[in-house]
């Protein structure tokens, strides 16, 4: 039996407002526990929430970038449930009238564009954080996170494979980074994701779904969905039934485990938050948010293709990382070979970023330094191969390529006289290869060039070396 995966994703995003969503508390990551908690964050009796308009504006930006309609009627609701990290034992959220709904995100999947619907985007408050000490018979609560604005972005169940889910998240994250509304860091918890998946023999029909929680990276989302699709398919093909439940992903073991069943699900008893008066957003405010939108990844991808002549693919990879694309454009402004810049960024530099797990911003590399190195290749001062060795040293020492070349005596040898002397010596020492070449074996030349490079410790200009050896042999 063939089953279709039907996947919906819920993303929670901490907005990087200056203060919390319903009080004036600051909200720095890593501050001393409970140092950023006022009576409102602590849910003390008598305290009242007041909406931070900045959070609303950032939420509107996200909604607009996801092509959602903005509701002009803004209201909040209470979601009631007991949990010690929730100081009021209700969360201020939005229920029947979210900030916005009915948008979409066009996602590139394997070279094709797929439109994934956005069901709703709404604003709510984050909870505190429970800290469990190993072996202790108590838990501690840090309320610094309590009241940080959260944006919930809910997709339609339009996603049909774990890879699509991965692409959706990656491309959504790129948009959020372009909007500069969050640091989007899953490790810090500023971006969180829950996934719903059901299988169905008919792609238009929803099956019984499982919700997966505890997903700590996009890769974990993909892996958990892969696992869950197989688990559900096995049950269904054996004639079993999927039970609607919430499951937890165990990243270490690579499996999902049941957490709670539908019967145990909360009745949240939503009702309008009486402490916050509903209000009307006028067109002016919505237009202001619209006008404040920056260039988004899809627009930038098109522009980079037309402006710099990069391939669709290269442009697509480049724009996923906003700061990498910024770096590219800064280089392209001062250097006339944008494709060369893109090649270096997408190969060597990306490899270094990946192996060191840092972003381009944290890499000690300026666009000026990179361009200077590329120009040294153009001017035959160094070879491309030498540059590959020089680049990591530039990053380690923050020095320009020129200094490294001088310090280590790495300058490329293009001087013919010097190279002829060395070549003659090589030919003498490698009579067999000379014979082979004369007998028509072209590979012998490659060998001889290699010997010359070794002799000069890689500094010989490969083009010149080739030319000289060929001349001496003929």
């Amino acid at each position, binding site marked *: 039996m063939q089953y279709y995966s039907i996947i919906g994703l819920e993303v929670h995003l901490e907005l990087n407002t200056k203060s919390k969503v319903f009080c004036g508390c600051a909200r720095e990551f890593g501050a001393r526990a409970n140092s950023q908690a006022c*009576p409102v964050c*602590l*849910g*003390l*009796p*008598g*305290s*009242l*929430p*007041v*909406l931070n308009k900045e959070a609303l504006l950032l939420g509107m930006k996200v909604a607009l970038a996801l092509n959602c309609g903005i509701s002009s009627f803004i209201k909040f609701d*209470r979601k*009631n449930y*007991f949990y*010690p990290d929730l*100081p*009021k*034992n*209700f969360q201020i959220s939005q229920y029947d009238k979210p900030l916005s709904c009915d948008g979409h995100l066009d996602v590139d999947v394997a070279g094709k564009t797929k439109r994934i619907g956005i069901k709703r985007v709404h604003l709510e408050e984050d909870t505190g954080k429970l800290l469990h000490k190993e072996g202790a*018979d108590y*838990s501690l*609560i840090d309320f610094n996170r309590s009241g940080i604005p959260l944006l919930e972005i809910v997709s339609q169940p339009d996603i049909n494979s774990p890879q699509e889910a991965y692409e959706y998240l990656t491309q959504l994250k790129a948009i959020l980074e372009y909007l500069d509304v969050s640091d989007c860091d899953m490790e810090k918890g500023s971006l969180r994701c829950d996934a719903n998946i059901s299988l169905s023999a008919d792609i238009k029909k929803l099956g019984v779904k499982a919700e997966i929680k505890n997903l700590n990276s996009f890769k974990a989302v993909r892996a958990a969905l892969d696992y869950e699709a197989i688990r559900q398919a096995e049950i269904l093909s054996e004639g079993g039934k999927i039970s609607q439940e919430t499951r937890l992903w165990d990243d270490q073991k690579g499996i999902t485990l049941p957490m709670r069943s539908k019967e145990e699900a909360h*009745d949240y*008893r*939503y*009702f309008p938050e*009486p*402490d*916050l*008066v509903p209000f009307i957003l006028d067109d002016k405010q919505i237009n202001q948010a619209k006008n404040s939108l920056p260039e988004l990844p899809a627009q930038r991808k098109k522009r980079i293709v037309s402006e710099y002549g990069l391939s669709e693919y290269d442009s697509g990879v480049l724009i996923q990382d906003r700061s990498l694309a910024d770096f590219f454009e800064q280089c392209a402004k001062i250097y006339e070979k944008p494709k060369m810049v893109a090649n270096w960024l997408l190969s060597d530099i990306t490899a270094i970023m990946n192996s060191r797990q840092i972003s381009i911003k944290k890499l000690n590399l300026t666009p000026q330094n990179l361009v200077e190195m590329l120009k040294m290749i153009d001017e035959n001062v160094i070879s491309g191969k030498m540059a590959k060795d020089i680049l990591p040293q530039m990053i380690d020492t923050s020095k320009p390529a020129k200094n490294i070349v001088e310090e280590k005596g790495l300058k490329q040898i293009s001087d013919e006289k010097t190279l002829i002397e060395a070549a003659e010596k090589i030919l003498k020492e490698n009579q067999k290869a000379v014979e082979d070449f004369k007998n028509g074996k072209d590979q012998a030349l490659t060998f001889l060039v290699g010997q010359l490079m070794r002799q000069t410790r890689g500094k010989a200009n490969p083009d010149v070396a080739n030319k000289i050896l060929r001349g001496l042999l003929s």
Partner: protein
Amino acid sequence: MSIKPYQLTANKIKEEYKKGNLKASDVVQSLFQRIDNVENKVKAFAHLPEKNVGAGPCACPTQGDHRGSPLPLSGIPVAIKDNICVKGQLTTCASKILEGFRPPYNATVVEKLKKAGAILFGKTNMDEFAFGSSCENSCYHPTKNPWDINRIPGGSSGGSAASVGADEVIMALGSDTGGSIRQPASLCGVVGLKPTYGRVSRYGLIAFASSLDQIGPITKDVTDSAILMNVISGHDENDSTSVDLPVPDYTKSLIKDVKNLKIGVPKEYFIEGIDSDVKDSIEKALNVLSGLGAKYEMVSLPNTEYAVSVYYLVATAEASSNLARFDGVRFGRRATKTDNANEPSMIEMVSATRDEGFGPEAKRRIILGTFALSSGYYDAYYLKAQKVRTLIKQDFDEVFKKFDCIITPTSPTAAFKIGEKLNDPLSMYLSDIFTISANLAGIPAISIPCGFTRHGLPIGMQILAKPFDEETIFRVAYTYEQNTDWHLQKPVL
């Protein structure tokens, strides 16, 4: 002086301060003496004023000379209902669950009182979390009516009304969700105003029902009510339901003039079960006003009969959510004994705390409100109640198109006996039948003394006006008060 300072109104004390006849320490000492004499009978306080009150460095040193002080409440002792946060002082809503709770912050009204020079003078008793109309639902002790200590003072602000009525304090703050200021004011023979919803900040008022609660003054006369309203009114950036409208000087509304004033008298309020003495007093009061040039006419508020039902759905629904935070996790009482004593889970701790901490009326209302919000019942109960609430508000809008104010009895009966209605919640709920509508409609309403029953118990008259038209209320109330002497009668204790 034959009249003791504790007997004076705030306005009179201000005059005496100005003349240099009186010092704040005289007033405070006089009140402490009065408390020593009568508090064991009245039991108005949940937490008595501290003996060193007003002695510390504050805007109003009790020893100081208040002559020429520009502060509106300089040296005036004000009692605070126990559900209003005072920094560092016990604030418990007369509930075991808030045992020992001292808020780390002041309610906005408390800040305003301090800035106005007032002396914070103890925390008054109340029905637990303002749930009740008799002040019997307190975890401490029932408060007694100063006019007859075998009777209830009304509630939930029974402690505030009784303390003012018994001259144990000069003025007090109460809170009113369905009549909790006006009904006890009526039963204790004092003046109690519930302002328009949004006129006074609720920040620091421990919420019962957020969309209905308002803080308001309980005072010996209408003038003091206006003086206290001047201090506590106004927009607060910490309460987004407080309305950003200018606050008039309410003392300027203290004018003896009701000529051509149009009074509506709702026929639905003269129901079966209303005490005939109450009915007679209101009729006499209307005649006094018409004798002064006002005109009154019967009007209709057709949805009045639904008010109590609507109220007990909306108020309990909000309360069930507002009271969820009392879980023993961060403040107040935490149960140590649970069924699973060896290893109590978090849920067990929370339920045991709430089981021990809440009294029976609080539990009743939490359960009712939780039910009204539950999935499958929300539309039939909460949502429908909100719709009827809109109709009730529209009834008032209609009447106020033609009339300047509405006059009704405050409560259908005078004070009932302690214990009389304790086991009959529905009949207890009906004692708020005339006051609830003002909260549902968000309009201002005052209760002022307008007579006594044949048994010598005070009767209150309620005056209601358009939203933010406290000025008309003050004008009518002041005119009536200045032409009668009910407010000058004092209980014998």
